């Protein structure tokens, strides 16, 4: 009992005394290519109490201010440890997943040659991805670096989840409006078990307009549930090696039926 209390006190209450260095602009910029060095640069040591407070605070702030993408990201990091472990195990039992974990590829404008992908034929994964980015005016550089996950393997899993999110949107043909985001969140919730995805799917649906809600109930939600529960684990897809693969082939391989609109 005494040793349990001592451990509890140490993890919850002992203040991390190591200074958080405020690096100058040149140092603070992540490489974007080497995950390990970016992880070491961005990692912030936190006690269990701080993680709990961050999880609660970011959840509340996400509801209050849904535009705070950083809050949603932090909620994913602090409230999703068991989900991250689940995802890591699922990746480790897949050959493609093991390769991803070994190489730790990144998806951003430094690592992905977007102009080259734009020259691929229509219907390929690469071309579909670039079309998605252009149509929805999003960039692969908008994903935040993981800060509050202490284990590097788990940190990579959540980083990878963030960086493939737009690719998942693209292959599921879901736009970045509220309806599209909620649908993708449902698929991700079933696949990843991240509380942030579950919360995003449930609370995001409350913000749908009446017209969107009708479509959501009639077709998007049932399709998302079916896709999320029956498709292959999307985190095991090494997208970077499949840019020239036709999307329809990929969907068939992953057991995903496109939604009938």
């Amino acid at each position, binding site marked *: 009992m005494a040793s349990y209390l001592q451990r509890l006190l140490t993890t919850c*209450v002992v*203040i*991390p*005394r*190591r*200074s*958080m*260095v*405020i690096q*100058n*602009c040149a140092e603070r910029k992540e490489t974007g290519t080497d995950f390990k060095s970016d992880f070491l640069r961005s990692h*912030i040591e936190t*006690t269990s*109490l*701080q993680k709990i*407070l*961050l999880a609660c*605070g*970011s959840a*509340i*702030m996400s509801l209050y201010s849904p535009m*705070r993408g*950083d*809050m949603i990201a*932090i909620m994913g990091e602090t409230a999703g440890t068991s989900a991250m472990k689940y995802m890591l195990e699922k990746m480790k039992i897949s050959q493609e997943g093991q390769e991803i974990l070994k190489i730790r590829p990144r998806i951003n404008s430094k690592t992905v040659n977007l102009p080259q992908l734009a020259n691929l034929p229509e219907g390929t994964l690469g071309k579909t991805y670039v079309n998605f980015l252009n149509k929805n005016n999003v960039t692969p550089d908008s994903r935040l670096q993981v*800060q509050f996950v202490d284990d590097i393997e788990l940190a990579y899993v959540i980083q990878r989840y963030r960086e493939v999110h737009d690719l998942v949107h693209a292959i599921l043909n879901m736009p970045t409006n509220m309806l599209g985001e909620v649908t993708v969140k449902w698929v991700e919730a079933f696949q990843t078990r991240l509380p942030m995805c579950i919360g995003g799917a449930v609370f995001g649906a409350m913000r749908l307009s009446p017209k969107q809600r009708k479509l959501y109930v009639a077709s998007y939600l049932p399709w998302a549930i079916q896709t999320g529960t029956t498709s292959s684990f999307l985190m095991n897809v090494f997208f970077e090696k499949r840019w020239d693969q036709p999307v329809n082939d990929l969907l068939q391989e992953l057991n995903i039926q496109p939604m009938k609109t």
Partner: protein
Amino acid sequence: MVLHRRIFWSMKPVSAGLALLPRTASYCHSSGRKSFDNEETHFGFERIKAHEKNEKVREVFDSVSSTYDIMNDAMSFGVHRLWKDIFIQRLGPTQGTRLLDVAGGTGDIAFRFLKYLKNKECSENNALGVKSNVTVCDINEAMLNVGRSRSKSLSWIDSSDISWVQGDAEKLPLNSDSYCAYTIAFGIRNVTHIERVLEEAYRVLKPGGRFMCLEFSHVHNPYLQWLYDQYSFQIIPVMGQVIAGEWKPYQYLVESIRQFPNQEDFKHMIQCAGFQHITHENLSFGVVAIHSAFKL
């Protein structure tokens, strides 16, 4: 002790005693103006080169400026407003005071100073119509911009009564012997050389002028100190991340409080700069302290 005849403030009593030791006390170090490339200083709990500190502090305040006031309210539960109200009451300015507020970027002290005088003008007959003014000096332009926009939104402020100047507290771009009062609130712990700031304060003040500092200080009660440490290190960076989207600047802020000299040590530093009649008063059990001194 000879006081200058023209009194620029009403002398509010403070609780600590007088300190009339001569300037050349043996424990005073000469700050000199020479700095060495390998001179080190603290930045929170980290040791860095002294010449890097200004830039690092500038980056901290660049990143917090837009949410500075909101975070102050959140971290102190609004109590910082009371501390600043008491600070201005202790200063007790009279009409005609020329105030220099250093590191006062967003204008909290300046606005309170003008409000105090405005309320005093209403209750007293300012027959001479002597105008007071305040110069707000800050090293960070982003913080000054926040202050300027706040000033514009306050209809009762006459813009000619307040001027905004970018400058380094260690080397003020201002003439000597030109201000009646010098205030620095929650700024002095961020400077690289506290003693230079104090010397500059002495230089720009007129003889008889008053130096006042409001700064986080040391809590002496060990139980309260433990609670304060827990709150500072566990809660404040989390608040910074959730409210302002920044962790590291708020980690720096709580570390820098611990690095600042305690009440007595800071009093000695003020004395070494040449000030006299130095007193200090604790607020909130020593979480903050007001130091007051005169150039005589």
